[in-house]
């Protein structure tokens, strides 16, 4: 049956220029998506690069200024803070998310009763609308009658209320905490799925050879799930670096610009002071990091067939 099918396919191929037709069909199928990408993503992106080379004030035509916006930004102290904040925010949050995700996955892995129950609840932060999770963390961290202050004062750790979101470094810490809370389930669930795909025999063999639980973790689990760790971290780095929602909802970049990151500063410059050129230059500065992340990721994800 199978063989006769193959012969028939060969005849079909010879008869009607099958592959040519196939190619046309294939392109017809991907055409809508490609068109969408070109008009609503690639074209705006290229357009954005042009905008970043101009200075435009509302009501006047744009003036071409070359790389002036980019040069100005290097000397802009807010932008310098934005770079610093973005890196602290991203690497602080991603490393804690990875750590917590690992703890979550290891605790849930194999032989625990109520896996579905716990896993179900652990995804709650991830499906909560960001507006709400952002605001709830504002409240936990707020100075007057905020939960954290009530708790710390109740335990006798602090004497006076701390206005967490009004002190620069503490505010950055607060948005990182909120980001971790929201994002660690992604790591936990992905790492758990990866761990469950490691063949059980490896562990049994290692047990027979007398390897301890820590040794098994470092020499079997971690090396085997390494690709997933890297991919998750890269995706999370890109998403966290470009985050807007949580920071804007919690602090709007304040106090004293101490939590401004790329996206919030872009928004402020574009939509609140209407300096489109400068705003675009800020966001174009992200692309090198993006390109590096994409190259790494495609190395892991495009290995097919």
């Amino acid at each position, binding site marked *: 049956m*199978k063989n006769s*099918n193959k012969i*028939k*396919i060969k005849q*079909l191929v010879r008869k009607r220029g099958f592959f040519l037709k*196939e190619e046309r*069909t294939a392109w017809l*199928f*991907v055409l*809508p*998506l*490609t068109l969408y990408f070109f008009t*609503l*993503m690639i*074209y*705006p992106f290229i*357009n*954005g690069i042009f*905008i970043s080379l101009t200075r435009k004030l509302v009501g006047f035509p744009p003036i071409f200024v070359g790389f002036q916006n980019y040069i100005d930004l290097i000397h802009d102290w807010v932008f310098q803070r934005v770079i610093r904040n973005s890196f602290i925010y991203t690497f602080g949050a991603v490393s804690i998310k990875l750590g917590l995700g690992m*703890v979550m996955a290891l*605790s849930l892995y194999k032989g*625990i009763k109520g896996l579905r129950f716990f896993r179900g609840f*652990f*995804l*709650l*932060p991830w*499906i*909560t*609308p960001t*507006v*709400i*999770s952002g*605001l*709830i963390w*504002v409240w936990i961290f*707020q100075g007057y009658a905020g939960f954290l202050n009530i708790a710390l004062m109740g335990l006798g750790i602090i004497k006076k209320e701390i206005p967490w979101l009004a002190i620069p470094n503490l505010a950055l810490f607060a948005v990182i905490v909120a980001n971790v809370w929201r994002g660690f*389930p992604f790591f936990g*669930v992905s790492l758990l799925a*990866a761990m469950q795909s490691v063949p059980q025999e490896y562990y049994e063999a290692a047990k027979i050879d007398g390897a301890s*639980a820590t040794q098994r973790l470092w020499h079997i689990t971690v090396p085997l799930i390494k690709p*997933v760790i890297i991919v998750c971290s890269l*995706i999370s780095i*890109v*998403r966290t*670096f470009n985050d*807007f929602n949580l920071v*804007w*909802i919690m602090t709007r970049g304040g106090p004293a610009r101490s939590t401004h990151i*790329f996206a919030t500063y*872009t*928004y402020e410059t*574009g939509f609140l002071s209407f300096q*489109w050129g400068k*705003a*675009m230059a800020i966001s*174009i500065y*992200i692309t090198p990091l*993006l390109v590096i992340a*994409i190259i790494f990721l*495609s190395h892991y994800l495009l290995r097919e067939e």
Partner: protein
Amino acid sequence: MHKNTFVKWETIYRYFVLCVVFLIVIFPYYWIVVTSFKTMGQISSAKSIFIPNPFTLKNYTHLIKDTHFLLWFKNSLSVAIVTVIITLILSNLAAYSIGRIRFRGKKLIATLVLVFYLFPPTVIFIPLYLMLNKIGLTNKLEGVMLIYPTITLAFSTWFLISFYRSIPMELEEAALIDGASRFQAFRKVILPLTLPAQTAAAIFSFSWCWDEFLYALVFLQDVGKQTMNIGVYEFSLADIYPWGLLMSAGVLMSIPVIVLYVFVQKYMIRGLTAGAVKE
């Protein structure tokens, strides 16, 4: 004997860790629900913070009667549904082709999909705004419906490609030999097999739209045109945070995603891990 006590301690330790994580996760949520039933007076006096006393539904009635919440809710729902439909149509066609047909340029398209999977809205929201403004689509739900697929399409396509690839090729070869066109084979033979993947892609896209904030903030300014996230966010711009109102909105906003989620947790997890874990 020694081994058994070790196993026991390990299990206890793991449950302990799980319970700690559980508390971290559940606490802010508990806080949202509890606050939504508190009176304004109780919230600001910070007394008996763990239970609403007296219990009140005022926040909810106030939210529904005196604000545009229901309208925003409807806006969010219609934007999300239209986006999911557009996403499913475009990404299925492309994913089928990339996953099952050989053609030149396939690798290029697959790479493009991956690039856009990571592409942040941050980089294009300004030019998109200027573009839509020029053709008069800002401040209209249609405009947002048009651009929301920029967030969902790449992921959905990426996710579906691997699914289409996993279906045996012989299935449609038979149909093709019998004279069916590619589109017929796709629609009649393959598509019915992909229902679980469609569900996952749809739910994932839906929850993404439900959460979207930046585009909605930029594109929709009129109170009557806003989506839920923006409307509720703007409550928080008042001099004093109206916590009762915000938290009751939070409860109502979470319900649709939680309901979806309870029914299809399995698919949701599949969607969440699809980007990273290969099956």
